């Protein structure tokens, strides 16, 4: 049980000093000074937080033989989410969640604001991309058998993330507040209401009353950009922690290497 810490990659290892730098009197170059300052700052932070160990634990992991492009679907989903988060925050700067002004604020954003249509398009199409990526990631996990022991909990967290993603899609669809989004949400809420016993009450909760009212849109907006992001960020954190803790699986077609001596004994 020697050093279990993964070794530092070559680029991060301290370089031995060159012969010209050995002289203490020689004035170090600007580049060296900057590097020195950088190291000082990182050291200062690390001495007080001890974060470098965790960062290395997260980033420099051993991955199994046979790891391939399918293993990037998880990161792709995460980057799709980050894209939604960033564009969503900026869109919120222009959006007005009131039933009488929401459509107008979106019209203004789309037609008048520099890059407005582009960033809104990123958010709109990005949401579809995220749902597709999440499903592909789920399919990869299923077909590679990566949900089995000891990764069952991560599968469960993944299902929660899928449901949260779909809640995002549902609540976000209303926000443009055009005819399509209004009627799609009317239908969506009605579907939600067909759940026996609790359905009618859940509908009243979602709409903030028995009819689509003054606060319905604000409620969807608050869920979409305050409640759900907090929940999904927490869950993504847990998901990533478990990935780093448990490691990834090899694809099912990769066989474990058997010690040739062991095979000899059997025969």
């Amino acid at each position, binding site marked *: 049980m020697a050093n279990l810490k993964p070794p530092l990659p070559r680029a991060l290892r301290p370089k031995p000093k060159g012969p010209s730098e050995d002289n203490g009197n020689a004035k170090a170059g600007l580049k060296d000074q900057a590097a020195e300052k950088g190291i000082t700052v990182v050291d200062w932070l690390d001495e007080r937080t001890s974060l470098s160990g965790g960062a290395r634990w997260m980033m420099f992991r051993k991955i199994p033989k046979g790891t391939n492009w399918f293993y990037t679907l998880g990161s792709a989903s995460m980057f799709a989410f980050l894209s939604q988060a960033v564009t969503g925050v900026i869109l919120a700067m222009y959006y007005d969640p009131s039933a009488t002004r929401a459509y107008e604020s979106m019209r203004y954003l789309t037609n008048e604001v520099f890059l407005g249509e582009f960033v809104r398009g990123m958010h709109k199409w990005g949401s579809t991309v995220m749902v597709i990526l999440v499903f592909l990631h789920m399919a990869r996990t299923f077909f590679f058998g990566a949900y089995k022991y000891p990764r069952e909990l991560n599968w469960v967290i993944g299902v929660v993330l899928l449901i949260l993603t779909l809640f995002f899609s549902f609540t976000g669809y209303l926000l443009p507040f055009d005819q399509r989004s209004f009627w799609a949400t009317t*239908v969506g809420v009605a579907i939600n*209401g067909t759940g026996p016993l609790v359905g009618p009450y859940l509908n009243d909760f979602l709409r903030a009353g028995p009819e689509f009212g003054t606060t319905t849109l604000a409620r969807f907006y608050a869920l979409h950009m305050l409640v759900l992001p907090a929940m999904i960020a927490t869950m993504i954190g847990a998901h990533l922690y478990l990935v780093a803790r448990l490691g990834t699986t090899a694809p099912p077609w990769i066989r474990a290497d058997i010690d040739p001596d062991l095979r000899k004994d059997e025969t």
Partner: protein
Amino acid sequence: MSRERKEPKQPKTTAEAQIPGAFEGETVSRRRFMTGTAHTAGGIAAAAFTLPAVGLAVGPVFEKHPTHWESVGPIADFADDTYLPRTLTLVRGIGDVGKSTVYIRKYNTDLDDETRDEYNEYIAISTRCMHLGCPVRFVEASERFICPCHGGVYDFQGKVAGGPPVRPLDRFYTRVRKGNLEVGPRFSVNSELKRFSPRDPGMPLDGIGQYVYPARPSVRKIPGT
């Protein structure tokens, strides 16, 4: 026959449990007391902001929705063999979103067989499809209400004639005031046109439907109707 099993005696006081620094007759150790106090204080502090916030969020479920009567014109406008569309304001203060179309006609003695009372001399049919809530349209030529979304069809009385809807179209209470027709709150009906408190689309009211999809405190039909 059973010999009394020797259970280790549970110490009654901290002194008996030989906890260092125990006071005489003390039953809860000071460490446990302190832990309990801290947890209780934390719980109360968390509840102090969580409960009001949750109450604010779920309050509308229990709050009674205000209803009003709205005049839709003189009674002479409405015939008993066809519908006239009228626009109602269901929710005030949110512009067009709060408005909805209703189809209105006079009670037709040849056709309608529900008991007459002060609220159905004129029949006001809601345009929300009882499949999933899309807006239905009355087609004069076929005397049918037709939904554009999933093919729901209703007959002249608003009863289901085909497609996925689970119950007849909802109705509104109507009353006559000084020669004008007024339209009031909405109610739901089952396939025999019996009145129920308003339900959302997709909720059947025949058989056990009214119990599986209970009435909500936020909207009720007029008592005794």
